[in-house]
């Protein structure tokens, strides 16, 4: 297991990158703790798979350094880095048996047969394929195949890190939960450093201790699920995480009040952004109360999703989503009020203040 340092890493796929636009990965400078479970979360094309492949050595970064336990591994090959990676679509050696598939990475490294046998059987037990040991891998279903891919990643115990590239895409929803909690258990038991790429926020939030949110080739925030929810550092994190996402509206600041259209909102503490072009206020739908007090709104739509209702309202020209408990009624003359605890202020999309 290793601590991973990403030292000013930048990557462009084309030759001679000139502007920031040419970089798939703009600049990543972070340290990931030994034994941590990280999830890389972001929309498609934000650079998360690029970052993962840089760590595994499948891609050599254009700039920057990668350190495992303080040792520079930037120029080492994938084999020499000794990491495991599980891909989005199952990769199996279909002429081999299930057993041989799992034994393959060990045999390639000259591990003694007795040790291989012990490890493979243990892993097969873990991924619940023990009864398939001597079957040909070819005839398996997609999620069984993906389990084999997972198994090949888990079978080596001496790896520096295990990387997952959206590994549960092809697995059906029920199995997803099972496998995800198994991975989490494994992490707790063996303390692997795990990096898990996904675009599914539930998956990221349930799997990881720290979620790394990426947007447009940059890491915008690293934090615990709670931090991401309560204090999104960037407006993108605000609306990417949460369902529905955070309400973000342009405001004018004056001391400790913010003005939305013609309404004034008291801020918990005065925020003084230097000279930003764009000031916004962000508040999650969970922190807005719909009632008879506050700012008058019109209701555009009510979505009843069972647990609660999502009320789509309009405050002057601003769309605002509000979450209302299932039992509560919606008043005929609706008003909304912001809970000061949930207010965040953003200058040019980055958080500058709030609660």
């Amino acid at each position: 297991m290793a601590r991973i340092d990403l030292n000013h890493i930048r990557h462009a796929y084309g030759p001679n990158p000139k502007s920031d636009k040419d970089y798939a990965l703009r600049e990543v400078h972070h340290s990931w703790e030994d034994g941590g479970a990280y999830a890389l979360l972001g929309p498609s094309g934000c650079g998360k798979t690029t970052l993962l492949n840089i760590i595994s050595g499948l891609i050599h970064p254009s700039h920057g350094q990668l350190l495992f336990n303080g040792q520079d591994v930037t120029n080492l090959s994938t084999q020499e880095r000794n990491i495991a990676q599980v891909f989005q679509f199952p990769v199996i050696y279909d002429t081999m048996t299930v057993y041989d598939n799992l034994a393959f990475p060990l045999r390639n490294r000259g591990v003694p047969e007795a040790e291989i046998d012990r490890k493979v059987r243990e892993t097969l037990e873990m991924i619940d394929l023990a009864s398939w040991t001597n079957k040909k891998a070819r005839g398996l279903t997609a999620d069984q195949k993906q389990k084999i891919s997972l198994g090949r990643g888990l079978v080596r115990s001496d790896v520096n890190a295990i990387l997952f590239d959206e590994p549960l895409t092809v697995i059906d929803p029920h199995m997803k939960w099972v496998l995800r909690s198994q991975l989490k258990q494994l992490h707790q038991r063996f303390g692997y450093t795990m990096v898990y790429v996904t675009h599914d926020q539930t998956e990221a939030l349930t799997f990881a201790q720290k979620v790394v949110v990426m947007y447009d080739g940059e890491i915008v925030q690293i934090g615990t699920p709670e931090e991401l929810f309560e204090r999104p550092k960037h407006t993108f994190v605000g609306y990417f995480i949460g369902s529905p996402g955070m309400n973000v509206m342009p405001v004018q600041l004056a001391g400790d009040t913010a003005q939305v259209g013609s309404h004034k909102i008291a801020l918990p503490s005065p925020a003084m952004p230097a000279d930003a072009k764009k000031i916004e206020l962000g508040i999650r739908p969970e922190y807005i109360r719909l009632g008879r007090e506050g700012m008058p709104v019109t209701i555009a739509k009510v979505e009843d999703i069972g647990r609660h209702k999502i009320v789509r309202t309009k405050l002057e020209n601003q769309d605002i989503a509000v979450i209302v408990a299932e039992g509560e009624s919606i008043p005929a003359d609706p008003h909304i009020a912001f809970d000061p605890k949930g207010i965040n202020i953003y200058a040019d999309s980055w958080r500058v203040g709030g609660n």
Partner: protein
Amino acid sequence: MEKTWNNKAWFMVLPMLLLVAFSAVIPLMTVVNYSVQDTFGNNQFFWAGTEWFTEILQSERFHSALFRNLVFSFIILAIEIPLGIIIALNMPRKGLGVPVCLVLMALPLLIPWNVVGTIWQVFGRVDIGLLGHTLESLGINYNYVQNPLHAWFTVILMDVWHWTSLVVLLCYAGLVSIPDAFYQAAKIDGASRWAVFRYIQLPKMNRVLLIAVLLRFMDSFMIYTEPFVVTGGGPGNSTTFLSIDLVKIAIGQFDLGPAAAMSIVYFLIILLLSWVFYTIMTNYDAER
């Protein structure tokens, strides 16, 4: 809607049936017809029964032509299949090299067969041919017109030059269909170059290789034009393969009966051997 039940649909198949009848069934039946009769010209035919078949199956000449042909097919398969795989593995996967390589590879396949024969016939000549002259000046007494070994060498080299590309193109098609993730996973798993070939590339090429082996076997077993142009079946009978022999009997000696009988035996041998190849390779495939 009411369903109509009648046999009119057969009319839809009729054009195809006619086409197959005229292109395959009727000519084949003519041959069958010849094979069981004897003729002395004048369009007079006499029933001969299985006489020609017995004669062909017992003839020394047929046996030796069959043996030569089997050896020839075996040698060219043994060279072209591995060579084709090696070339395909080393061809570029992207960039400008791809179209260049593909065009170069396709060139020999586009040349008419008798032109291929002529090219090699000239190529091997000691007086003006590049190959013949070079060998001569290296002190090798090369003469494909008189030395059976040299004749075989020339014919095999020609076939390898002409047909290896086909194997290459088929294998290449198999190789490019392998997703990148497989190679990446192999790197992660620490697989050697050999293991990548054995467990990723070869299994993916399996199907195209089966086609390549079948096509090359059938083609080489029926080879006629190229050796006919280069050696004419000689020296002596050393490069007289089955189809060259067949033409000699049918056109040269005008023995229609024996020639027809031989055609049928020849056809059955190809069918049988192709079936054997196919069964072995698909069974092996299923077993794994």
